[in-house]
């Protein structure tokens, strides 16, 4: 990944380039898991960073971490995309297999992955979002709470509940 080093005219409280470098793949992973549509995920990822770039002066450190702020933008953009797809009656979710497993994987590992993928596709969107934020975007529980606008303990509770459902789905897969 290249490291953009664009000179900015002013010195905002946010190092956008550093944030972009650190969060680009995480944002994409979160959005792709949520939308289950690779093309839409790319659009939303690009829109997220463009919005963040334009609104970087509105970032207030007192209101949360930079990553939480960025993922809040990504979440809104992703939900707007879901609304648009709903309006267009074109909700055509791609298979959850957004990354094909390498053929050389051991059979047991492949089975395990297939079970996890299947379980992921069966859990509800809210659980899937929590899992995406935790395991694909790499946010800690406090950042997840900030993105979802809930308390940290509530985020922990919901994450635990999502994991319980996922474990059950894996067992039944």
């Amino acid at each position, binding site marked *: *990944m*290249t490291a*953009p*080093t*664009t000179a900015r005219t002013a010195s905002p409280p946010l190092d*956008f*380039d550093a944030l*972009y470098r650190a969060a*680009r*793949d995480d944002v*994409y*992973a979160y959005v*792709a*898991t*949520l939308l289950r549509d*690779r*093309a839409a*995920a*790319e*659009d939303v*990822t*690009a*829109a997220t*960073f*463009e919005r963040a*770039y*334009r609104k970087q002066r509105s970032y207030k450190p007192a209101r949360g971490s930079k990553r939480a702020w960025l993922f809040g933008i990504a979440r809104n953009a992703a*939900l*707007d*995309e*879901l*609304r*648009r797809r*709903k*309006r267009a009656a074109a*909700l055509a979710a791609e298979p959850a297999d*957004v*990354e094909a497993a390498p053929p050389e994987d051991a059979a047991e590992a492949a089975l*395990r*992955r297939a079970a*996890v*993928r299947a379980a992921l596709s069966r859990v509800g*969107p*809210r659980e899937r979002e929590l*899992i995406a934020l*935790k*395991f*694909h975007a*790499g946010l*800690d529980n406090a950042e997840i709470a900030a993105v979802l606008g809930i*308390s940290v*303990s509530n985020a*922990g*509770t919901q*994450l*635990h509940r999502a*994991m319980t459902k*996922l*474990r059950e789905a*894996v067992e039944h897969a």
Partner: protein
Amino acid sequence: MPELTPEVERELAAIDDALTGRRVASDLAELGELALALREERPRIDDGFGHHLDTRVERGFPGRDPRRRASGRRWWSGLLSAPVVATVATALLVAVIVIADPAGQDESGGGGGTASTQETDRADGGAATQARSGGASAGSAQDSSGLAEPLSAITVPPAPAPGSPGSDGRVRRQVERSASLTLAARPRDIDTVSARIQDVTRRQGGFIASSTVSSSEGATFRLRVPTRNLDAAMAELSRLGNVRSRAQSSRDITAQAVSASSRLKDARTERKSLLRQLADAVTLTQTESIRARLKLVGREIERARAQVRRVNNRASFSTVDVTLEADRRAGAPSSDDGWSPADAARDALRVLEVAAGVALIALAIVLPLALVAAPAVLAARWTRRRRREQALDAV
């Protein structure tokens, strides 16, 4: 929300331990493996898209993303751009100023201000006499000769007509001069400018023959200024406001002066002759006849003296008619001594007053709008958030 139970906290900690590579308790090993498996399922970004996005970020997102599909951007979202908002706000502010600044409205308030009319004469004897006679004569002269007709510039006294007493140059020419001046000042400055007009008049050795001052509508003054100071007085008066019109005129009254002097001289000569005749008179009838004649001549001398004084007064004092008009768009009256620190303080205060007024008007408009708009904005945000959450649930 209740606190997390110890069991939940332990499982969450196990997940974090697994993700960070730390050892997980054996009874939670399965959970740790699931956490790692989930992380392995993380979607990977396409290299082509990643490079494209890097380029756009590096260039600062110029223009529209050519790879971007048609978005759900609303048609009205462009209306909220900063230039549009600024334009609308400016138009609103201009409209407010226009509405709040009707032409001709008096700033002094109180339903038109106070008005006073006064006729002023000088109290001291000689000057009072001079003022009364001068004012009367000036008025009559104006009525009869049309002195009020404005001239575009100071006119040279007209050449004496052939055969006039001044045409041969043996008699000093007497010229009656008059002027009119129309000034404009802001309504609240009317009183100040009026006071300055009186100051200028006194400083130039003149006096106010009559004046009418209305704090809201303006003022009129009839000034009597020594003719030798007329130009200086006009210059000073012109600095007190915005000059709307200025005119001066002159009229040769040498003939009237010579005529009055001649009458006085003739009367005095006749009186001397009659006094000599009286001294030589023999009979009672002659004496009484001469005395009666002396009485008539004495009255004639008094009339001639008064006429001479009037003519001299007309020549030595000029009439200046000053009209002061109230105009909100007029500038502030200038100080006699240029721009002083006091003027600067007044200007600063005025700027603050205007700024406070504009802020108050803006507040009066914005506050009700905000009271109406705030719930609407909150409701819109709540609705949008709810719809987003519904969109997530509908997947």
